[in-house]
């Protein structure tokens, strides 16, 4: 019988994983330069899905394991728990020392270095929402922790943060909504040392995309379902071994299905976009892909699907918080040192007020995002709060991005400074669906 970990215990478990990881010393990020040459030619590539490991199919008959809700403390409180502070402290350091310095190279390579991915695996990023009994770290839902971690990662680099969080999104989806058999089949791999690349594919490449009105279809037949359609915003699709895909069941509404990448009919097409380049965005093309009936995630219920869409939007809002913070800190340092007309430009209200407004909007969207997350983990309805957080993160996230460039003037427009990358990354927040989950 495993002793139930208290919050302190969870923090220590994460720290222990980090301490035992030699990755801190061996992160040779600069080695990815050779990769950049190869990836540069990758623009128009189109390949079959990566060959997936053989996920050993387990016939579970029992009830799936579900994370408990956290209880309502009844007290208004903005202070993270001790274990949250510990985890965030570590992730922030990683973001500052690994993700930020490696951002330009990862962007050029249109991928996140394996060392970085494996290190976040060692941190236990994917474990945060996997129940303890299945090898994870958690017994309670921890949407707030998820938000804090995603923000901390994105403060380093949003593109790499998305790549690191993509497998966790799939693990979280299976953990939250999967059947017992699905949990037993897939979660051990995510809790193991070699976390599989995996992607949650919801978006489709068309204007006014609505995740509740999908064009990717699942048609029932004797062997299960046949999938057809095109998904976009699929993180590291060419590497992914497992996809969770949003499809419209003919006449039955949207639902999530599990698709292993080696399934015939699965094609991955590179889809380089204006930003998030380190996330290796691709399209997933499904051409008469036959999946078994038990590939439907969980009950395939409308409620689960809705919750997935909401939690994904919450994660995108969290990412905007981190990158927004990066912009604020960067421009604050810049405007107080850059001189024009004989004094720092921060002495001008036109400049200083822009910075003040970045801080005000960032704090507002942070609080609304945290409220949504805390409602989610308490089991309260959080649809409204997620919609509001998404609106703020999309609107003001982009405003912060564009003001970040504006405050540096011409210097902001060239790649000598990171603000132009943050500008491109922040555009994603208001339009992305899927890919990440908290």
């Amino acid at each position, binding site marked *: 019988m495993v002793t139930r970990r208290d919050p302190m215990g969870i923090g220590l478990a994460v720290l222990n994983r980090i301490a035992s990881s030699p990755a801190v010393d061996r992160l040779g990020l600069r080695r990815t330069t050779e990769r950049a040459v190869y990836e540069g030619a990758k623009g128009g590539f189109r390949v079959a899905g990566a060959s997936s490991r053989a996920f050993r199919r387990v016939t579970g008959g029992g009830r799936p394991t579900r994370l408990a809700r956290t209880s309502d403390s009844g007290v*208004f*409180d903005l202070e993270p728990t001790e274990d949250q502070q510990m985890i965030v402290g570590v992730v922030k350091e990683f973001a500052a020392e690994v993700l930020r310095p490696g951002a330009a190279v990862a962007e050029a390579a249109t991928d996140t270095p394996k060392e970085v991915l494996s290190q976040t695996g060692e941190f236990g990023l994917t474990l945060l929402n996997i129940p303890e009994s299945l090898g994870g770290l958690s017994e309670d839902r921890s949407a707030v922790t998820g938000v804090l971690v995603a923000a901390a990662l994105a403060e380093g680099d949003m593109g790499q943060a998305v790549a690191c969080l993509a497998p966790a999104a799939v693990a979280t989806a299976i953990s939250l909504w999967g059947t017992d058999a699905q949990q037993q089949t897939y979660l051990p791999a995510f809790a193991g040392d070699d976390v599989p690349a995996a992607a949650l594919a919801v978006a489709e490449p068309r204007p006014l995309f609505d995740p509740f009105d999908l064009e990717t279809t699942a048609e029932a037949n004797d062997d299960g379902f046949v999938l057809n359609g095109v998904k976009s915003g699929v993180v590291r699709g060419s590497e992914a071994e497992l996809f969770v895909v949003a499809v419209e069941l003919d006449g039955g509404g949207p639902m999530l299905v599990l698709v292993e990448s080696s399934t015939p009919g699965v094609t991955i097409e590179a889809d380089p976009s204006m930003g998030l380049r380190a996330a290796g965005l691709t399209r997933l093309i499904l051409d008469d892909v036959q999946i078994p009936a038990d590939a439907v995630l969980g009950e395939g219920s409308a409620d689960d699907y*809705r919750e997935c869409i909401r939690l994904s939007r919450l994660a995108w809002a969290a990412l905007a918080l981190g990158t927004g913070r990066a912009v604020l800190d960067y421009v604050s340092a810049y405007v107080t040192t850059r001189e024009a007309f004989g004094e720092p430009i921060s002495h001008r209200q036109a400049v*200083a*007020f822009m910075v003040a407004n970045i801080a*005000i909007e960032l704090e507002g969207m942070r609080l609304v995002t945290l409220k949504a997350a*805390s409602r989610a983990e308490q089991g309260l309805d959080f*649809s409204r709060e997620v919609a*509001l957080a998404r609106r*703020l993160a999309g609107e003001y996230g982009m405003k912060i991005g564009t003001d970040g460039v504006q405050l540096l003037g011409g210097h902001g427009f060239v790649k000598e400074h990171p603000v132009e990358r943050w500008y491109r990354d922040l555009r994603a927040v208001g339009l992305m669906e899927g890919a990440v989950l908290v």
Partner: protein
Amino acid sequence: MINLETPRKFRPFVQQAHQVAQEFLRANSRKYDLAEHAYPKELDLLASLVDGMGASGQGQGAGAAGVRRDEDDEAGSAKVKNGTNMSSVLSVIEMCWADVGLLLSMPRQGLGNSAIASVADDEQLERFKGTWAAMAITEPGTGSDSANITTTAIKDGDEYVLNGEKIYVTSGERADSVVVWATLDKSLGRAAIKSFLVPKSLPGIRVERLEHKLGIRASDTAVIVLENCRVPAANLLGNPDIDTKQGFAGAMATFDNTRPLVAGMAVGCARAALEDTRALLERAGVVIDYDRPVQAQSYAAAMFIAMEADWEAALLLTLEAAWLADNRRPNSMEASMAKAKAGRVGNDITLRCVELAGTLGYSEHELIEKWSRDSKILDIFEGTQQIQQLIVARRLLNLTSSQLR
């Protein structure tokens, strides 16, 4: 543990405050908007009720008072606290959901009372108990630059002799005393500015006239003239010494405590407009869906969600500022952030609500047009939008007031 829900222990009280606000304030909203300068007599009963709750220790700070920071209160306690700053803000939100002007007219809940609560010593607190104190800072030639005031206070024996003209004195006619800001010596700058509690019964203080305003018409806004008004020296609030090192900080401390309350006023007023606009839109067939992307919804629905998002951010910034104060943490920047965000979105939301509701919203058939007039002052008094941005920017960028002017 992060949790941004209304504290459980305040939920019943918020519910009560809401009902009181509905019955006493909202019900009389249009009446006193139309009858500017008429005394809202219904509030006398409510004020006694509030006083009674305060005396019996059940009060949660129903108005713009109760912002004193009691340093001994649970000193050393590591426990996170939801205290009077939070409950005052929650109360103000409910009251201003009903009517900002009437809240400002609440007997014995004036801004001067906040000043007393913030800077008076214990003896003064006891002596001024029960007074209704208005606040007089602004002068015809001095607005946001309150360090520049010209009203003088000259020591003469046991008294100070005050001379000058004060404008925009909220409740200046109805209150029985006025907290007047005056300088002991103009050449010594902001450090010489002190506040005095001036009972209106004294000779030499008079109400010159009342303003006719865009909004908050239920609240009287007076011009007050001081002509050789002799005030007991013991009525100088706080320290009488001119400490040039401390400068203006003492006098300005009041504002750290009252800014979240004014932010709360904007939040309450905007919520009223959002609620009524939503009802009107839904009656007109507009569907507001939080799950569908806003891009794929009607303009009105998308606009509504955008307004609600800004409103929620303003609410939570306001609660954060109050929470910090309750937990003895510095909140000057957060208080200004809350005031800046709530002030501007409160105004923007109410005006857009009028737009969405069309001529119906523009007419006196609905209260939306009134809220859109009331909301404007909330982005001006207790520090304009621009002053809040100055405060935030200076703190953020570590600049002095001479560097960032």
